[in-house]
């Protein structure tokens, strides 16, 4: 019958299409973004952050970067706590992405100091050798349009003050995108919750290591530390490194857990062995040598 009646076929096809649609697309609205999902500490974007988000969208950053950490061991180790639905209630549109040409950014906020981001956007390869990320230094020459941003905040229904809007004058798109990146994933106190507590005595497994043995470890330093502390530990974004000032255990803790308020990221994902190698390299490699 339906093979002879196009109107009937259209109606039946519509019904077939709507069953799965209603169950898996319409019904979820009854659960998602309701009270059950709410996380008290999650706040809307500020005017500057929202504008940064719009720059992120305009430049298509989501084509290479995801923004969801899955509850899988390797993923949580690499990026941080897994993502919760309540963290995204102010995201229009969602920016979860589908491909990690670059790393996931859901927990990027607070990982690096602002200065790291400015330098990295300006010239990605100085901070991350061999990366294929394009340079975005040109964003700094685009000034923000405070009136347009005000309009956006109104459409989104996000709170803002006139002083905040006025303060946008003179700021540029680079300031905005860095502000946005620093907000990512930092609404919930996940770093405190997942921080590793080091128990027991810290014992240096490479105690008394020779200079020659440490030579291959320079590579570890160059890949993980040099971007901020300089190729010769002279300090750039991070301070000059004078290892002698710290005990071995203290150095281990700083590298392993980072200094969250001081802009030093945690390097626990390297594992204890590599961190110990770095401790020894920093503390003893240049000692009594004319290496630099």
């Amino acid at each position, binding site marked *: 019958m339906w093979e002879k009646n*196009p109107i009937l076929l259209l109606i039946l096809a519509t019904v077939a299409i709507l069953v799965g649609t209603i169950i898996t697309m319409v019904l979820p609205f009854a659960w998602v973004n309701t009270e059950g999902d709410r996380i008290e500490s999650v706040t809307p974007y500020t005017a500057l952050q929202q504008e940064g988000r719009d720059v992120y969208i305009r430049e*298509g950053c989501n084509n290479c970067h995801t923004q969801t950490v899955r509850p899988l061991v390797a993923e949580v180790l690499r990026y941080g706590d897994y993502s919760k639905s309540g963290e*995204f209630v102010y995201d229009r549109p969602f920016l979860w992405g589908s*491909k990690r040409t670059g790393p996931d950014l859901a927990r990027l906020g607070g990982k690096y100091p602002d200065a790291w981001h400015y330098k990295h956007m300006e010239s990605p390869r100085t901070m991350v050798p061999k990366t294929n990320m394009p340079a975005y230094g040109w964003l700094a020459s685009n000034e923000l349009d405070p009136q347009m941003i005000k309009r956006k905040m109104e459409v989104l229904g996000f709170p803002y003050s006139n002083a905040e809007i006025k303060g946008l004058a003179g700021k540029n798109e680079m300031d905005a995108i860095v502000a946005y990146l620093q907000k990512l994933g930092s609404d919930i106190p996940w770093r405190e919750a997942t921080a590793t507590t080091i128990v027991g005595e810290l014992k240096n497994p490479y105690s008394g290591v020779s200079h020659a043995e440490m030579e291959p470890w320079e590579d570890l330093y160059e890949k993980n530390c040099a971007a901020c502390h300089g190729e010769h530990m002279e300090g750039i974004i991070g301070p000059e490194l004078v290892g002698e000032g710290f005990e071995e255990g203290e150095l281990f803790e700083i590298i392993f857990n980072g200094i969250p308020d001081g802009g030093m990221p945690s390097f626990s994902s*390297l594992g204890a062995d590599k961190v110990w190698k770095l401790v020894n390299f920093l503390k003893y490699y240049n000692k009594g040598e004319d290496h630099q």
Partner: protein
Amino acid sequence: MKATAYNYDIVRSYINWSILWGLVAVLVGVIVSLQMVEPGLNFPPYLTFGRLRPIHTNAGIYGWGVGVIFATFLYIVQRLCKTPLWSPGLARFQLWFFNSTIIASAVTLLLGYTTSKEYHEMEWPIDVMVVILWVAFGINVIMTIVKRREEHMYISLWYMMAAIVGIAILYLVNAAAVPVSLFKSYSAYAGTNDANVHWWFGHNAVAMALTAPPLAMFYYFLPKSTGVPIYSHRLSIIAFWSLIFMYLWTGAHHLLWTPVPDWIQTLAMAFSVMLIAPSWGSVFNGYLSMNGQWHQMRENYLVKFLIIGITFYGLQTLQGPMQAIRTFSAFIHYTDWIPAHIHMGTMGWVSMISFASIYYLIPRVYGKKLFSVPLANLQFWLILTGQLLWSISLWVAGVLQAGMWTAMNPDGSLTYTFMETMVEMYPYWWIRAIGGLIYLAGIIVFIYNLVMTVRNGESAATNVATAEGRA
């Protein structure tokens, strides 16, 4: 029935324009593949990977994919209904509106006006244009079917009508947004809801634009090319209804392990696996239609394109469900495996069927015999080699990348930093770019062959007459 009764002008125009947009899609694809290996090839603000990649995907899906849908459907619907198009004027308007929409999309995307939603990046004014376009097309096709002079509606018409309704629903719901200005809007949905709505759209855009329409073409052009009917009408009925029913449940397989509620993910996973049945229903129907006709794979280049095309569809619909299983998704998702999967569908399945359809149509709508069959065969091998090199290199890359991302030391720490995994990708990305270049060469051979056909081809009057004498 005299050929002059049908409106072939419009079919010719759509063929020409869709090929142009297909060329743009592949060209931009090659450019972005090179940008991935050499970041110095990004020229901000307009010519960066982030802005060009959506132009590649949208030119491919909407310019080439939908352009071929328009070309073939407007031909098939007239033939299957034994009646001229309901409104040639509307079809002409639709053509120019279609080209305007594609150009407007490319320009606005270059300027950075984007919603960021994959395969739906264009901002709201272009959404309005797409809706007008689709309504014009839908009305014309449906009205032609309504006033048909053939009682039964053939399989291809079912798929066409399902696609018309399906795309309308998907596009409208996912386009919902609140405008801030002419070029900026915010999604009507937030966060997890937005993600779920979007991938309901995203996966079913594949179903309704890149599965149902090529199946409509396949079911029409395979019997037309081989001269024997489809193996089983009953199988095609079962495959059709189960396909359009099951597809809509599967969008969340793009969101496994995300904050989308688990039950939606589980349903998506289950229905994805179930989808193997209707997909392979069509594959088998195609293969079994070749009973006693397999020698045509050697003799008839059209059949070669169609059968290898449906074979890619079969592989695609086995690999897809596998990726939709949670455990495998945990390993492979977000790696280069995924674009390899997508490109097997687009470069292999959809484009192979589209090339065959166009090769079939050219002699009939231009009245010229194909300039060179050897060149068509050369194109076939270039396309096949380019696509296999493209996908196989990135499948290998994806497995390597996934393995390195999850590798752990005995003390429970990660073995590799992200950059250590990324630098391993460069060689594979180079091979992929070469695959893309070979594919591009295939497209150029295709265009050359068609241009020569239209310019210098022999009259194909006898050719058409014999073809019409068939099933």
